[in-house]
């Protein structure tokens, strides 16, 4: 029987190694798996490379990991979201490496990892500082840069409802990076508001099919 439910947050975040690449979903605080990231912090894991849109808000979740010095590097499109003081302190102290990636490229690079794509050409960042050092190519008279996939060792996501197979449904703009991150990691861990009976989610409206999900925990 397929049952992806685990009993605790501690079990949900177990097995993440030091130095792991961690996909942290959310757009600011919306859709962020705060409780999972808080639980990850308690494991003592360190030297993490976190991939996220922002670099944490307030003192919890990703911000908490940064505050405790668990994050070696953050790959994001826009570090400063609402109340970014943990990020700012770590960055100014030179304790956090920052890699800025355009938001669409960030998302597409994770999708590439999810889809077995070894690299792809896009116009975004061509002819700019963020495109420097990347292979370029002129296609139909326009300049493109070659972008590489980003694969996570683990993805932490948040959904509204799930079933024991791991099928997920989100809520409004809290969907954001969750579906693409859920696809793009070796291990995908999801916190959900509610787990419903198998067969009670509408087959037409599931956004993330369970094939992408490894662990579910109700928060």
């Amino acid at each position, binding site marked *: 029987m397929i049952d992806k439910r685990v009993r605790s947050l501690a079990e949900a975040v177990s097995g993440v190694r030091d130095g792991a690449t961690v996909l942290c979903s959310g757009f600011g605080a919306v859709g962020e798996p705060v409780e999972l990231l808080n639980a990850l912090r308690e494991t003592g894991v360190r030297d993490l490379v976190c991939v996220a849109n922002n670099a944490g808000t307030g003192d919890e979740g990703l911000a908490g990991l940064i505050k405790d010095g668990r994050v070696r590097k953050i790959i994001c*499109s826009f570090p400063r979201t609402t109340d970014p003081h943990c990020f700012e302190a770590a960055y100014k102290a030179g304790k956090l490496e920052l890699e800025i990636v*355009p938001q669409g490229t960030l998302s597409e690079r994770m999708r590439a990892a999810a889809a077995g794509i070894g690299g792809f050409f*896009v116009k975004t960042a061509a002819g700019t500082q963020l495109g420097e050092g990347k292979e370029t190519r002129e296609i139909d008279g326009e300049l493109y840069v070659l972008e590489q996939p980003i694969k996570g060792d683990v993805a932490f996501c948040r959904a509204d409802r799930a079933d024991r197979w791991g099928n997920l449904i989100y809520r409004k703009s809290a969907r954001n990076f969750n*579906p693409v991150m859920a696809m793009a990691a070796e291990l995908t861990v999801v916190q959900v508001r509610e787990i419903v009976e198998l067969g009670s989610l509408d087959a037409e409206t599931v956004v993330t099919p369970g094939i992408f999900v490894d662990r579910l925990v109700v928060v």
Partner: protein
Amino acid sequence: MKPLSRRQMAWRAAQDLEDGAYVNLGIGLPTLCSDFIPQGREIVFHSENGILGMGPAPRPGEEDKDLINAGKQLVTLLPGGVFFHHNDAFLMIRGGHLDVALLGAFEVSEKGDLANWTTEDPNFPPGVGGAMDLAVGAREVRVLVEHVTKEGRPRIRKHCSYPLTAPHCVKRVYTNLAVLDVTREGVVVREMVEELDLEGLQALTEAELRLANDWRRLAAPEV
């Protein structure tokens, strides 16, 4: 000479959004435009975080913390609006499906280069968000910005001094003094505020300006 207020600038840019257009409004000043869509036009506003058909801020008591725009302000959804994930949101942007991206800027060059993501201030960590994607992906990129900085430095320049968001992307610039088009023949003034002449505008602009034959006065109602 009476420069437009920020709300008047937003009003002016909003007048050019056509019925049925799919539009992304950049964070800050451009976001104001949604308040000034002429009656009878349906504009579908896109947000990078997975919304088409975004509506205005919620009324008190109707806020939903899971419904925010790219600037992380609470918003609403119009009938016909839909949600999707980030990857589809950027497919729309990068694949040329948006009619207009209306963005803020630090600088615009006479070739339409846009600089709006970093001033390279070492005390201010950089962040690009979706700016580069919007600049290369939207069918038409327009900029809404004050004509000069607080220090009086022209924003419309021969070359951008800040790092580029994208080269050759801006088609039109709305400022508090003028409406300007970036053309192959350079920057063309379409509209100027009352009591301003080309010489006066040129003095506030680094790029060389040409006056359109059919130029008009830029005026906006009190909004």
